[in-house]
């Protein structure tokens, strides 16, 4: 699996395997992670300031 990612990195127009995996091969995981970040902020706002973000 790891060798496959490294082998296919140039076909995604990049040389940095980590960035290519984050934004391209495993992009859906990254999208889930940043959604969790935003939900965490909404949770903090709900607990501290009745849901007002600012």
């Amino acid at each position: 699996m790891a060798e496959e990612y490294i082998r296919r990195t140039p076909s995604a127009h990049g040389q940095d395997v980590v960035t290519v995996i984050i934004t391209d091969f495993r992009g859906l995981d990254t999208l889930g992670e940043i959604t969790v970040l935003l939900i965490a902020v909404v949770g903090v706002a709900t607990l501290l300031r009745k849901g007002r973000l600012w």
Partner: protein
Amino acid sequence: MNRNDVMLRVVARLLLGPSIMVAAALIVKGYNDVGDGFAAGMVVALAIALCYVALGAAGVEDALPPLRYAPRLAVGGLLISLAVGFGPLLLGESLFTHHPGPGQHVVTVGSLELFTPLLFDIGVFMLVVGVMTVLLHQFADPDRGSEDFHDRTDEGKQP
């Protein structure tokens, strides 16, 4: 915390500009070298956090009024990333189909490659900066803006 620490305040103010430059560099060369949207966002967020430590929440938000757009920045970043991720579904392609595809020509400006993963990275960058700023704002000054909450509890105590 000594709020009259001149050194800390000067450094915090001076670091903001370079941090944005470093973040831009991390995004531009992200595909050919170390760095991506997460790292770039954290660099800018740490500079903003240093400003919060040095100047206090009210001081920073007076000195940098654009900070109040942080929630919109975060939500906008998520929407950009969602659009890049799920947009190809509308065109009948699978999730996260990036353009131009493998083997096709990519327009480059210096080492900046103009393709859809770059847009996704910028969305992640915006979200990380926005989320960290909102969190700092919430934790630095949680009591401001909750007066009506106290009013209501006071009313409840009266017979």
